[in-house]
């Protein structure tokens, strides 16, 4: 029988971590995602599965604990919100450079600086274009429902270990704080230390007699070898770009106008699309699920069909750059956004579509 529960996005993420067989969560409280650790601490996952939950002294501490656990081949994760994620960038860069798998949740709030605790999508650039120093990418998943806050945890770990790469879930205050129905999946077992040894020949688990020692590092001072390491990373990113693109299209078959939005914005756009269609305007919606790798090809394809694209984001215009790249300037691509914690209503979105794209 299906196990249904009404949960906040943050709680669904936390429950998913336990059920995905995660080994360790390290975090530091910050609004609007503090429910993650609160839920985990209340649930006592160390009794349910043996999973470790530790409140660190800072986000710096948290991400470096994730680094340490990930380097041991363990399924480690953390969560935070924008200012905390900025603080984690150092560690994320090291994790990417050392090619370690882990899961990082950003429940985005408005910035810059201390900004606001209200929802925003203004960390798109930071998440998809690197974030910290050096040439690296995170695989970025954008949940747009509480169900996806749950489902993307096991998907995230799967991708992280497949590519030995950090995966970020880019959520926001709407998805983190809202409650929806969630269908819970069954408990997956945690890997034993022996399984980790067999599956992950890179993990530091203690040097075995007669075997080479294992070293986790991002340091290589020799330019030739560092370039080689970078080329290997780039090769991995190209592979991710060709195999891991995920998106959802709604009513795109007959669409004359296209909305492109991710996460909570996509939910608002869905209603705006319904409102538009009830008025006879043929609107479709394309929702990127992976923000990196970005679904350029479906944008390219749809830009040959529709008359114009409205990109709706809770920011001043970030994903629009990728949509423009995909559309090759074939058609009009405009941005509509609110920021600072303001959320547009479906009516506002439809009005923007009529004014900026259809009438403009």
């Amino acid at each position, binding site marked *: 029988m299906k196990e249904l529960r009404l949960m906040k996005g943050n709680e669904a993420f936390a429950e998913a971590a336990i059920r995905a067989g995660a*080994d*360790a969560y*390290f975090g530091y409280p910050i609004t609007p995602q503090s429910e993650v650790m609160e839920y985990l601490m209340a649930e006592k996952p160390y009794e349910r599965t043996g999973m*470790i939950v*530790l409140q*660190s*002294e*800072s986000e*710096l*501490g*948290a991400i*470096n*604990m*994730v*680094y*340490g*656990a990930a*380097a*041991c081949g*363990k399924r*480690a994760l953390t969560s935070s919100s924008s200012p905390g994620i900025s603080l984690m960038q*150092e*560690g994320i860069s*090291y994790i990417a450079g*050392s090619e370690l798998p882990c899961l990082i949740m950003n429940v985005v709030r408005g910035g810059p600086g201390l900004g606001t605790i209200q929802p925003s999508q203004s960390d798109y650039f930071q998440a998809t274009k690197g974030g910290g120093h050096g040439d690296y990418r995170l695989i970025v998943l954008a949940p747009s429902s509480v169900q996806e806050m749950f489902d993307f945890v096991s998907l995230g770990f799967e991708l992280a270990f497949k590519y030995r790469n950090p995966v970020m879930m880019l959520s926001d205050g709407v998805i983190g704080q809202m409650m929806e129905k969630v269908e819970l999946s069954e408990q997956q077992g945690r890997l034993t*230390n022996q399984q980790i040894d067999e599956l992950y020949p890179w993990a*530091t*688990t*203690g*040097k*075995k*007699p007669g075997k080479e*020692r*294992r*070293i*986790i*590092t*991002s*340091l290589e001072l020799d330019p030739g070898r560092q370039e080689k390491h970078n080329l290997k990373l780039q090769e991995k990113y190209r592979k991710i770009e060709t195999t891991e693109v995920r998106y959802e299209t709604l009513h795109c078959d007959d669409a004359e106008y296209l909305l492109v939005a991710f996460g909570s914005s996509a939910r608002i756009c869905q209603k705006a699309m319904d409102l538009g269609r009830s008025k006879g305007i043929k609107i479709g919606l394309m929702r990127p699920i992976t923000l990196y790798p970005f679904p350029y090809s479906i944008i390219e394809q749809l830009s040959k069909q529709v008359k114009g694209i409205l990109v709706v984001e809770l920011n001043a215009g970030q994903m629009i750059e990728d949509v423009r790249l995909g559309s090759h300037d074939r058609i009009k691509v405009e941005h509509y956004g609110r920021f600072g914690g303001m959320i547009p209503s479906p009516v506002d979105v439809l009005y923007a579509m009529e004014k900026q794209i259809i009438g403009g």
Partner: protein
Amino acid sequence: MTQNFDIPEIRTPENLVYKKTSVLTDNVLHYCPGCGHGTTHRLIAEVIEEMGIQSEVIGVAPVGCSVMAYNYFDIDMQEAAHGRAPALATAIKRVFPEKFVFTYQGDGDLAAIGTGETIHACNRGENITIIFINNAIYGMTGGQMAPTTLPDMPTSTCPYGRDVKIMGNPLKITELLAMLPGTYYVTRQAVHSPALVRRAKKAIRMAFENQKLDRGVSFIEIVSNCNSGWKLTPVQAIKWLEENMLPFYPLGDLKVNGELVKKSE
């Protein structure tokens, strides 16, 4: 031209007085001649070999002179970001409670940029060993002021000496950490004479043995020289260390078995 110094008639079993520990690799150390890092590396490696825990140890290297420590220890190691080694070690020990986990950090790494990680790992009482090399200077980056640089001591970023009114005072972090309930064993050692080397090795052994007890952090400061950074010859540097460093950073145990050591004088 390579000269062969191997003389087989001398290299006989009865003449064997010293053998390099197998826990050190054959890689040539990049440390300056006369520096305490090499000696400390050897002591740690010997302790690991003597305890028979080579397959059970995970080490964490810092950023600083010992950034490439993982090239010399024949054990599994992780390289941390600057100052974050105690955070990595915290996680490693928690996911592998049965393993022996240690960090190896310099003064800038442990007592400046990583102060938060150091204090909180110690305060949580993580069951790990921390080896702290204090030479009062940033060696790797070329001799800049460290949190432990002595008053009036010149460095490249305080070329006229550390003016404590402007630059602040040296941080006696070892004394500070001894006060925390999470530390179980805190000691200050040195490795610039054979007697001190023997004593330091005992301390390192105890610090690793303590992990079997699960009582908290075992913390060893090694007061060391940096003859390159101090612009002295190795011999001068040892003299300078004894005359200047040791009065400020006195050697000895600060906390044993979780109890603060009372000074006799």
